[in-house]
């Protein structure tokens, strides 16, 4: 097993005597994207600052290539790049901004211009190269910030909620671009966000951080469908997230193989190959197994067994096994009327339109976790 590119051990950060970040162990491998999710104030930004060597923790250490840091921090900082939520560009042209990190490292002008041009094009902003950074829109500026980071060909890329301030279409476009770029390089990336879907989309592994501590680390499917504790569950919102394979797609309807079962999903865009199948608990209808209903608009009706029932106030969460883990949310009344309990046989129904598909691009290296 290769040594992790970047990691922390026993890190403790205190502000005013109170601990705001306490992480025993966290690693990121080369070529991997580690998504760090958590609510506001959870310590995500502090974690980025510590990883970026911008803030010295009160205790613990940062490991680079599995080894403790030695000597000046500057050479390590120069092997990393950081993108913050605000673009934080300088008052200069876009081209000058994107090249600023290279200038700091003393890269000769020809090489610098070549690399800057390449990355401006890569993020689709080569037309803006001579413009003043102050005149850019939010999305354009954030593209420039990303280009500025990636032109450095960093071994580690740290992103602190880079898309939080952007509108939806811009955000989606940028996530696509970033996803593709990260897939092409060997860079180890840590992507911090409070948005679950972003973490789901980009993360090879997801770390959940609440109250300054890491509560769970694992592949997104596991973290989202099997939260480690109630707080994680409350933040993430449990739902069904399972891997599947697209068998066919015709007329906007995709047939997906999920652990041997057939799931139909309405797919607007072209999907192919491996996907994540996501289903919100409130979209799953539970009915007695013996019922034989007539044709309904719910194209999916799967036999399932109740694994667990969890009461949440006036509602109840029902964990089902339909050949794959399936989560349903029903009212207490329904729970009682159906007399559901562990082991009960039921039928789980949901519409094709309720299924949300996430395409998964393969990465250069498969994460080891």
């Amino acid at each position, binding site marked *: 097993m290769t040594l992790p590119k970047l990691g922390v051990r026993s890190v403790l950060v205190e502000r005013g005597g109170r601990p705001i970040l306490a992480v025993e162990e966290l690693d990121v491998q080369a070529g991997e994207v580690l998504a760090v999710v958590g609510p506001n104030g959870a310590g995500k930004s502090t974690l980025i*600052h510590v990883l*970026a060597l*911008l803030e010295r923790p009160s205790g613990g250490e940062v490991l680079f290539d599995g080894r403790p840091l030695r000597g000046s921090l*500057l050479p390590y*900082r*120069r092997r*990393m*790049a*950081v993108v*913050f939520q*605000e673009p*934080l560009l*300088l*008052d*200069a*042209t876009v081209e*000058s901004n994107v090249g*600023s*990190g290279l200038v*700091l*490292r003393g890269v000769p002008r020809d090489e610098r211009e070549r690399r800057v041009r390449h990355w401006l094009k890569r993020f689709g902003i080569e037309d803006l190269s*001579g*413009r*003043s950074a102050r005149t850019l829109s939010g999305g354009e500026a954030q593209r420039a910030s990303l280009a*500025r980071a990636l032109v*450095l060909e960093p071994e580690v890329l*740290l992103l602190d909620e880079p898309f939080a301030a952007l509108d939806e279409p811009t955000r989606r476009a940028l996530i696509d671009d970033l996803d593709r770029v990260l897939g092409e390089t060997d860079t180890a990336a840590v992507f911090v966000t409070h948005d679950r879907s972003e973490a789901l989309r980009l993360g090879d592994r997801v770390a959940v951080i609440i109250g300054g501590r890491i509560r769970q680390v694992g592949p997104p499917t596991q973290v989202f469908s099997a939260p480690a504790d109630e707080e994680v569950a409350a933040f993430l919102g449990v739902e069904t997230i399972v891997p599947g394979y697209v068998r066919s797609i015709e007329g906007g309807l995709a047939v997906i193989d999920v652990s041997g079962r057939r799931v139909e999903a309405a797919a607007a865009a072209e999907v192919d190959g491996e996907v994540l199948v996501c289903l919100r608990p409130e979209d799953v209808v539970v009915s007695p197994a013996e019922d034989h209903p007539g044709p309904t608009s719910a194209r999916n009706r799967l036999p399932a067994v109740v694994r667990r029932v969890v009461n949440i106030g006036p509602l109840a969460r029902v964990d089902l096994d339909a050949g794959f883990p399936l989560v349903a949310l029903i009212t207490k009344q329904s729970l009682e009327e159906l007399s559901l309990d562990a082991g009960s046989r039921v039928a789980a129904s949901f519409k094709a339109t309720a299924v949300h598909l996430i395409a998964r691009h393969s990465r250069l290296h498969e994460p080891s976790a």
Partner: protein
Amino acid sequence: MELIWDGIREAFRLIFTGDAEVYEITLLSLTVSGAATAIALVIGLSIASVLAFRAPPGRTLALSFLNSGMALPPVVVGLVVAVMLWRTGPLGQLHLLYTPAAIVAAQAVIATPVVTALSVVALQTLHPKLRLQVLALGASRWQAAWLLFREARLPLIAAAMAGFGAAISEVGASIMVGGNIKGSTRTLTTATVLEVSRGNLESAMALAFILLALVYAVMLVLTITQQRRRAS
């Protein structure tokens, strides 16, 4: 009113006939105040960086002192510096009293609070996270300071201009620590005062205009630098 016109005419005459003494005085004013401003910038920017970027406890208190320093009466500064430089004073061994170096020191003391206080505010106009971003791009601490100063060049150059203005326009301290000695510590301002006390009001007015012209020339260069836009 006639006096003002006579003064302007006399000023042109002095400049274009290449009056050696006037040139000497003008050059001295420029170098002395320039050096004082340079010193004030070095000290001021260093302190301002710490106060603005590290935000240490007691920053507000320190700033209140600096802001008061902007209103220090130059004559008071001159008196204190003179006493320090007296033969019997703590720095008497340096033999600096009545030399241009003493004027530089006094003017630097006057200009430094101005430059520092305005530089702190100038640096505070930057985005609070910009410094982190610059460091994260791989800047050393010096590189980061340089980049951030460049970002804040508009208000920082204004601070420099204010410091220079304070230094070159003052006369009380310059007389007290310099002695207004012909040929060595006589500056434009001290020469003007001398001419007034001698009743040579046209000469005084002429020197005043030359001083204004000098100040304008310097400020013109600084303003152009400040307002230069980098890209469209």
